[in-house]
């Protein structure tokens, strides 16, 4: 029963025009960044390399090489992954509340489907939608940029270091990062989903999810010592950006990067497990509430 139900949920999601707004939004952001960097890329690279131009030779050829598809994808990922929670909340927040609002929740719940099964399928469908968004983004941002800008080594400019990965050592990092982002966004989906169970219209959960993420992100970004050790390590927003860890490499004793290495893999796994913990917490609570809930909508 699980599979037919899942198919129905996905059918509903992907038959709805609203769903494609998210896909359109992602395409728009990706294309905007690509167009901007196609025309003004060297100026952007100048800005990033400003700091080292006194010690190093920066010429047009170097800038052209740095401005390759992998870097473009990295820039896009940094831009989009901040906005993605909204797109995820749009569907996950609507998942139960939208059905309640349309009066179809009570209709569905008079069918011989257990509530736990129903809610898990709903959540799974939200997660699949999230993954589809990421796949779409990967197609446009990674493979699209690779086509438009070509490929070369990836240079990641950090605030106190420059990370360089060889061209052949990049794609797997992106795949890993996309998988990580899928988990991170599933945590957002789980939160929106939990709120969706509590509401009877979809605007509430969507706005509430975004508000929580904004507040948590601000807390995560704030460099105030009392939060650093106490609150920050436990906020899921802190861990949502850990995908970047896949683009930080290890070096040997002579400062030469090690191909295929990750600077701090345990940190990524720790973040991942915290996110998974949140997913279980949110989805579990949602299930628990929904099982007990009187459906009054």
């Amino acid at each position: 029963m699980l599979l037919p139900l899942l198919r129905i949920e996905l059918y509903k999601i992907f038959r709805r025009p609203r769903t494609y707004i998210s896909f359109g939004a992602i395409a728009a952001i990706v294309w905007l960044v690509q167009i901007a960097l196609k025309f003004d890329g060297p100026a952007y690279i100048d800005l990033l390399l400003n700091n080292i131009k006194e010690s190093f030779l920066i010429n047009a050829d170097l800038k052209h090489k740095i401005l390759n598809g992998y870097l473009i994808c990295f820039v896009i990922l940094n831009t989009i992954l901040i906005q993605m929670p909204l797109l995820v909340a749009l569907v996950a927040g609507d998942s139960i509340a939208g059905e309640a609002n349309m009066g179809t929740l009570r209709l569905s719940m008079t069918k011989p489907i257990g509530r736990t099964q129903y809610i898990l399928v709903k959540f799974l469908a939200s997660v699949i939608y999230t993954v589809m968004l990421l796949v779409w983004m990967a197609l446009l941002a990674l493979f699209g940029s690779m086509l438009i800008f070509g490929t070369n080594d990836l240079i990641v400019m950090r605030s106190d270091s420059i990370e360089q990965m060889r061209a052949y050592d990049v794609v797997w990092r992106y795949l890993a990062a996309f998988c990580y982002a899928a988990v991170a966004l599933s945590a957002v989906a789980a939160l929106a989903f939990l709120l969706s169970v509590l509401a009877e219209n979809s605007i509430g959960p969507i706005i509430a999810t975004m508000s929580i993420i904004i507040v948590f992100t601000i807390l995560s970004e704030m460099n105030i010592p009392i939060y650093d050790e106490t609150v920050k390590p436990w906020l899921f927003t802190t861990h949502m950006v850990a995908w970047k860890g896949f683009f930080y490499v290890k070096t040997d004793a002579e400062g030469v990067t090690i191909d295929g290495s990750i600077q701090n893999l345990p940190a990524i796994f720790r973040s991942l497990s915290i996110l998974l913990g949140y997913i279980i917490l949110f989805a579990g609570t949602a299930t628990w509430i929904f099982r007990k809930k009187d459906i009054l909508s």
Partner: protein
Amino acid sequence: MQANRIFFSNHYLFRSSFVHSFTDPYFQMNHNLLKVSHLTKQFGEIKAVDDLSFSMDKGFIYGFLGQNGAGKSTTIRMLLDLIRPDEGSIEIFGMELKKHRNEIMRQVGAIIERPDLYKYLSAWEHLKMFATMSGIKYKRAQLMEQLALVGLAERAHSKVKTYSQGMKQRLGIAIALVHDPALVILDEPTNGLDPQGIADMRNLILSLCHEKGKTVLVSSHLLSEVELIADSMLIIDRGRKLVEGKVNELFDPSEHLCELITSDNATAIEKIRSSALGVYLKEEREEAILLKAPKEQVPLLVKQLVEMDIPVLSLHTRHSLEDYFLSLTTKRDAASSVKN
């Protein structure tokens, strides 16, 4: 309980469809198709349903009456496991709802109020989806037949957002019936329909029962709609059962209902029960005592009440169910009309 006892002691007037019931296992096991005992549900301070008990037999149309807010919807939602009762039990097809929800729901079709449905999907897509959710294997012809039954065959592939209110309601019915359920529960199915739509709905319900042998529970706040089609009736107010019985008994032109109000109802009931008048006793309530007697017996009944020294304040006789319904349900708020 008293009311129940009286109800069951009455004989049935068999309808053609009732014959099916003899072969039904639930009937043979002396089970009701649906049995509700002491159902109670409280929302905060408000008791939406209060110690409600009733039962339904297979193959009949049951009218479930009460004003808006009387607790009909809450009751129906409890029957469908949408709302969990605080107390009491529900048995459908001889199985406890709490334990056998999915088994029961495979045989129950319901439509509650007016669902908006998925505006971006067609009637056809709706039926396919809900057929799957009902756990049945369907054929295309079968679903198209369902749509034809509710008059939506021609618009089967138009999106629901282009449908009128009546069409949506009919689609709702088709969804409720898609898996050919034995028990059909319709909550205010005529709400928002035009007169023609109401007439169509009435015919549909009658054919479901009489031609397809289904048991139908239909709720309404309009007695006029239910009395034309229902075999039996349950009237509730403020979550409590007022009356339960066969329509032809509640509405037997040869019998009159007498609503007796005395200055001391408790004593009056005692006296009536121990006298020959006890056979006429229909229901005891704080505010009134209901007696049911053949029309020609009414003058005698009045005489006997006086002879028994019962301080009669008023005695109203009713001969219309509508009138009866009004009398039962408008007391708490004289200003509100049942025909709102």
